[in-house]
């Protein structure tokens, strides 16, 4: 019966994406998500899909549905700062994997939005772990420019894309060098040449020599050149970071965000001085490649201390299925505070790094990522500290709509709770 209800709820959500309900979640340990300390006994009010107010001593509207969260934690939904969520059902099954469009011959023009599929099972799995919103990036193949990424929500409805074409993604480390013909010399040359061609395209079709870019790619880069669309640049090594910061000097209009940045701590002052935000891998600490020689889990903490605006993403790390690791990663950075010589984050900083931090990095901090007034009503009620391994969501709201928490994995779990055939085969237990 529970399963029938789950199915019915899912269908209802499909039929009515918007919900004008007013909800007050009261009595919980309230986390705003902006780096401030949790508020005991706080209240958050959501109306028409958005946060109206959140804090202590908030007046509860008369028509509100009140949810008592006493003894629980109430936070903004987790915002996955870098992912390929919605682009893959089974990674190694090609027909279900839309991460890369590299064989198409297109590059910057590639747009992940039509490939983001809200009915893929990783959406429901990660939603039930408290992830409500994600940065979705294409995967580069055959070109340094991977294409345009989006921000999506994990709501159980048919409209997942919050905003398409939020950013352009470019690889300028080892991956970029490989895509550009084998060296960083060629990847930087390609970067400059492609942008120059895009400028030529904008100034008149005749001057456009059409060697590196197709017209659609050139069109797509206009928003980057004008600073209307952010440029997410994947780099890991200290030197690659510095050389990219030089590019930033040569193209002052470009709004750059660094992604990966495992050696960021070595040049943290320079990143801070450039004012470029960073979405970093949280726990890289091995020289997996020579561009990660200096990788350490203290990277994010050290960059933070140097004044870098840094948040957490899962870069080429289980990026389509396991965004539920985001809270665990943040918790690990908190654990470093107790390790001699290590640099971690405070709990409040760590939670901001998986909520408002990435939202601000991609220029959407005024709309998502925290429980400040006017932000989307993405709220999670947890049965304990959301960064702790024993905790889980008990209620999830996306755009102010309470979400079903069931998923395919739960169905398998329930079928095999008793792993023996009953009076009929397992196939009849549903």
């Amino acid at each position: 019966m529970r399963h029938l209800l789950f199915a019915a709820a899912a269908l209802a959500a499909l039929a009515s994406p918007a919900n004008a309900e007013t909800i007050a979640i009261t009595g919980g340990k309230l986390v705003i998500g902006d780096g401030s300390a949790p508020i005991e006994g706080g209240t958050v009010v959501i109306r028409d899909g958005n946060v109206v107010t959140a804090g202590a001593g908030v007046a509860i509207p008369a028509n509100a549905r009140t949810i008592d969260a006493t003894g629980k934690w109430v936070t903004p939904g987790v915002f996955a700062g870098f992912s390929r969520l919605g682009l893959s059902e089974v990674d190694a099954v090609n027909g279900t994997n839309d991460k890369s469009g590299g064989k198409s011959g297109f590059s910057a023009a590639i747009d992940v939005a039509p490939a983001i599929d809200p009915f893929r099972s990783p959406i429901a799995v990660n939603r039930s772990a408290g992830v409500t919103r994600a940065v979705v990036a294409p995967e580069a193949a055959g070109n340094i420019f991977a294409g345009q990424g989006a921000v999506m929500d994990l709501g159980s409805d048919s409209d997942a894309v919050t905003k398409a074409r939020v950013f352009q993604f470019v690889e300028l480390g080892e991956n970029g060098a490989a895509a550009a013909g084998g060296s960083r010399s060629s990847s930087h040359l390609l970067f400059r040449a492609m942008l120059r061609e895009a400028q030529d395209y904008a100034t008149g079709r005749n001057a456009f020599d059409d060697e590196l870019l197709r017209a659609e790619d050139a069109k797509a880069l206009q928003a980057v050149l004008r600073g209307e669309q952010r440029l997410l640049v994947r780099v890991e090594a200290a030197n690659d970071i510095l050389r990219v910061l030089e590019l930033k000097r040569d193209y002052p209009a470009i709004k750059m965000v660094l992604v990966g940045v495992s050696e960021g701590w070595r040049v943290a002052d320079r990143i801070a001085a450039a004012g470029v935000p960073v979405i970093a891998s949280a726990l890289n600490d091995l020289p997996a490649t020579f561009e990660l020689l200096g990788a350490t889990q203290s990277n994010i903490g050290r960059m933070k201390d140097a004044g870098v605006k840094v948040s957490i993403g899962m870069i080429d790390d289980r990026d389509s299925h396991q965004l539920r690791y985001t809270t665990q990663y943040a918790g690990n950075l908190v654990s470093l505070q107790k390790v001699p010589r290590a640099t971690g984050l405070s709990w409040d900083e760590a939670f901001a790094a998986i909520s408002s931090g990435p939202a601000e990095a991609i220029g959407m901090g005024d709309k998502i990522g925290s429980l400040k007034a006017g932000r989307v009503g993405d709220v999670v009620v947890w049965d304990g500290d959301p960064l702790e391994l024993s905790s889980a969501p008990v209620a999830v709201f996306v755009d102010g709509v309470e979400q079903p928490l069931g998923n395919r994995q739960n169905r398998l779990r329930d079928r095999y709770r008793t792993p023996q055939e009953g009076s009929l085969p397992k196939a009849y237990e549903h």
Partner: protein
Amino acid sequence: MTGRFRWSILAAPLALIACSNTSEAPKSASADAPAEKPAKLNKDPYPSTYKPYPGVATAIRNVTIFDGEGGRIDNGVVFFAGDKIQSVGGPDTPIPADVAVFDGNGKFVTPGIIDIHSHLGDYPTPSVDAHDDGNEATSPTTPEVWAEHSMWPQDPGFSRALANGGITTLQILPGSANLMGGRSVVLKNVYARTVQGMKFPGAPYGLKMACGENPKRVYGARGRMPSTRMGNLAVNRQTWIKAQEYRKKRDSGKDYTRDIGMETLAGVLDGDITIQNHCYRADEMAIVLDMAKEFGYKVSTFHHAVESYKIADLLRDNGVCSAVWADWWGFKMEAYDAIPENAGILHNAGACVIIHSDDENQIQRLNQEAAKALSDARRMGFQISDADAIRWLTYNPAKAMGIDKMTGSLKPGKMADLVLWNGNPLSVYSRPEKVWVDGALLFDAADAKRRPVSDFELGQPGEGDVK
């Protein structure tokens, strides 16, 4: 940095390890004068040269102890000396004079963590092609290869596993490109100049086998057998028949030509070498169990085993362990039905659970992976204690590798392999504070000198950093 499948088709030459210079090294068979009867087989031609490093007799008191066998002692005492555990007990456990004493208030002690499935050293970092030494993917059955002959003892991953994960023992396996991938090697997580210097003394060998997608994909793509799951089984069965014949010949007392692959398979049939079988799907595991009965061997452990929960009763009844991740899923078709409650359902059914990593990152937080699996199990109503979950990382893998008489739990007489955690190891906020291997303090978070730095990292950015 993840999701790299261990089935690369690149075949690199074996990294030949320099000869060990111990004078006690057994003579090889070929060095003996011709004899009427075949020379007695030397089963240990690359013997361990590992010796415990010097330790200080140490007691930790006022500490919470998870003993690795499901026991918990609050305000307990652990005392170890001369590389062995001497006593473990409550607050009244006597502590001899003149030993180092640590107060463990708010801290926890566990046995050293054991990872039954690692590729450190045979797929080391940096993950460059030249280091791609885990799969001899040139034939679907290569029982003749030994993982220890691919091992790079300078893999920086060993230090991370020690310092962040409290790993003291680990099994290095060949990859899963082949149906029979070769022998495993069990190591102490102690750096040495040679692999022999890391080998766990007295640990049995394992044979890595693999079901499912990987072998049929690797060889099917080359137009050769196996290209299907039925092909997988057929090649396996033909090979076991050859092994039975070889064993008969070996035991006949007559001359025979040695075959090092067949020696390994005969060692399995003798019960000397454990079977470590990569297998995802429940139906395939059931077929492997029948194959084991057909040829008279035992499967120690199914690795990855993401569908073990579907046949937990069968695995319990056959006494087979499942070495699982907490929650990996969806990266390939045979991992599609993986669920986070796999460990919990197995444990609840009375089957043996092991949490493994198969990953140079998650080996650094196997304790956290166990905590997630425990939490998901409790959420479905199963009563499992913290101490039982620690068993998934200590005693159970030790048993599955045949080293449980030596390590894997805090019992007097066992190796003093233990971790002092700065909080409950099942919390995301806890980290190892000190790690002892055979009573020697080999990691101390408070002492930068008690942190190993591999040759590769000397003179590099971040040398000796906290990582």
